[in-house]
């Protein structure tokens, strides 16, 4: 996984709550067997009209937000389906960090696995950052994971909380499966003890 350390870039304001994963990447684009290439379908229903032309009023279709690396939204971002394609599509578009008052659980896990940093900040702070973002091309935000701060264009640093385990994994870009496989003896022991205690547990047999 690609590590996340610090990022300075354009932030795009998406003033909506409950942005669900069907909006982030509609189901018809989930037919891929790859992880990459989904960026062009990001927010497809909001970004393009029925003929496939860009909607001028959608934020990511406007300069400088076409180059956004940070997205700022409202409550419960990423709710709905478990599709990791939502994180892949954001990443493929170039978004490395989403800032919102709250996030849905599965989306948060998926983001962490893909080096996409989610920063939860109170609504009023998100509103203030959106106002910053609306100042245009020079309004770049810095997100510094090591220091756990978002630095506004004014230079003011806003602190955020993050789970220490998640932070460490993001900073180092760790391969979680490799780490777990190193604990295989514990898994073996668990399985053996379980089999001895509850031999009735059935296997899948078709």
């Amino acid at each position: 996984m690609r590590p996340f350390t610090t990022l300075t870039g354009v932030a795009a304001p998406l003033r909506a709550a409950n942005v669900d994963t069907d909006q982030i990447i509609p189901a018809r684009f989930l037919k891929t067997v790859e992880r990459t290439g989904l960026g062009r379908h990001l927010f497809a229903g909001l970004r393009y009209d029925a003929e496939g032309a860009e909607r001028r009023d959608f934020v990511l279709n406007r300069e400088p937000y076409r180059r956004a690396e940070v997205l700022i939204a409202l409550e419960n971002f990423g709710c709905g389906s478990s599709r990791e394609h939502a994180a892949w599509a954001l990443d493929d578009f170039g978004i490395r960090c989403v800032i919102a008052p709250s996030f849905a659980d599965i989306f948060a896990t998926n983001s962490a696995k893909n080096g996409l940093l989610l920063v939860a900040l109170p609504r009023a702070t998100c509103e203030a950052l959106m106002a910053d973002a609306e100042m245009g091309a020079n309004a770049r935000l810095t997100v510094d994971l090591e220091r756990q701060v978002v630095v506004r264009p004014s230079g003011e640093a806003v602190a955020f909380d993050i789970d220490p385990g998640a932070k460490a994994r993001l900073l180092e870009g760790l391969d979680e499966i490799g780490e777990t496989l190193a604990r295989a003896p514990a898994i073996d022991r668990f399985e053996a003890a379980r089999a001895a205690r509850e031999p009735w547990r059935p296997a899948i047999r078709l």
Partner: protein
Amino acid sequence: MPRTLYQKIWDDHVVDVLPGGEALLYIDRHLVHEVTSPQAFEGLRQAGRRVRRPEATLAVADHNVPTLDRGGGIAEPQSRLQVQTLERNVAEFAVPYVPLDDVRQGIVHVIGPELGASLPGMTVVCGDSHTSTHGALGALAFGVGTSEVEHVLSTQTLVQAPSRTLKVELTGRLGRGVYAKDLALAVLATLGAAGGTGHVIEYAGEAVSALDMAGRMSLCNMSIEAGARAGLIAPDETTFAWIEGRPMAPRGADFRAAVAVWRTLASDEGAAFDRTARLDAGEVAPMVTWGTSPDTGLPITACVPSPDDAPDAASALQRRRMLDYMGLSPGQPLADVPVDVVFIGSCTNARIEDFRAAAAVAKGRRVAEGVRALAVPGSGLVRRQAEAEGLADILAEAGFEWRLPGCSMCLGMNEDRLSPGQRCASTSNRNFEGRQGPGGRTHLLSPAMAAAAAVTGRLTDVRALI
């Protein structure tokens, strides 16, 4: 210390505690489908890893599959590739797979319980948010993303932080014409779309005990629409009777040994929940959603709400956007809204009980002029049983299309989808913008309510028809 059902299952599956305080949690059952697994198998292949326990894994194709005719295979090239990729992966990694032409094929959350693959006290995961369905059996079941699918395939475990617990107590009894789906929509309207975030819900109370297993599955299925990690119901005699004899369930002395363990799972007297919510099921009317979030359910006797009554400016804006998308006006009676399409199906409501309820309403009636009605069973076994009971004939005679099993118009990944502006009465679980097809408008309701909408051509209080 008294423990909740959730804590008991959790404690029973902790393999190791990690330095960050998270647990390495053992996963008993891993259900796999074609949409969220290709990249996971590819990851295994690239790293030279194997599937640790194929015999704990069950794969099936459901999201992309045609429900009209499979004789000629899958016409749409990308859907075909996804199903073929699954078939290649299960062969290479020796994972049990229910083929498309097998009578047991169906929606993963319908066939898991039906085949006895998901059982009480288990941890069950799937790369699909509606894995919460299996919680109806008293299993800790939750959806995961593709990276986690790969993690489970490779290690049979997941790294998890414990959730908070939310007890939803449902008192009283459901009235005539009111079903588990109405209860689920009422619970959602109470909790809100993020009301369960970070929590595992345990449903309890008289109304829950009285539900059959299909109803319990509908209720647990929609836990994720409140943002909850999982929904749980303590296994009881109804559960045990339903499981006994299922193909993969333990048999004879093994079954009795299993039941003895399953009986110990119920939350202990005095166990502490982080939160509690209460609802009187006797007060719940047949429900229908008006907006583009599943928590916008209202009694069918209500009117479309006005943005002016919203609690704050942001929710007023959100409401306005929803009304605009849905093509509704404030104050319009819900029972006055005409529909173009009716969809009875999905992992929420495509079990035999759902088709019995729909057929009871449709019997001797006709689907209204200009309405297209689809009935899509959740599995081949449901389909076969519905045909044996004469339900398929009743629905077909009424003018429903009687389809092959799959997710179908729940999310429109196959050819079954709404056209822009079309309005659908749907027994599925999500009414998000474009969920059933770009520009499509979805009203969530129960199978009986869906059948009522089909025969009258508008959202209708089913109590007037039964």
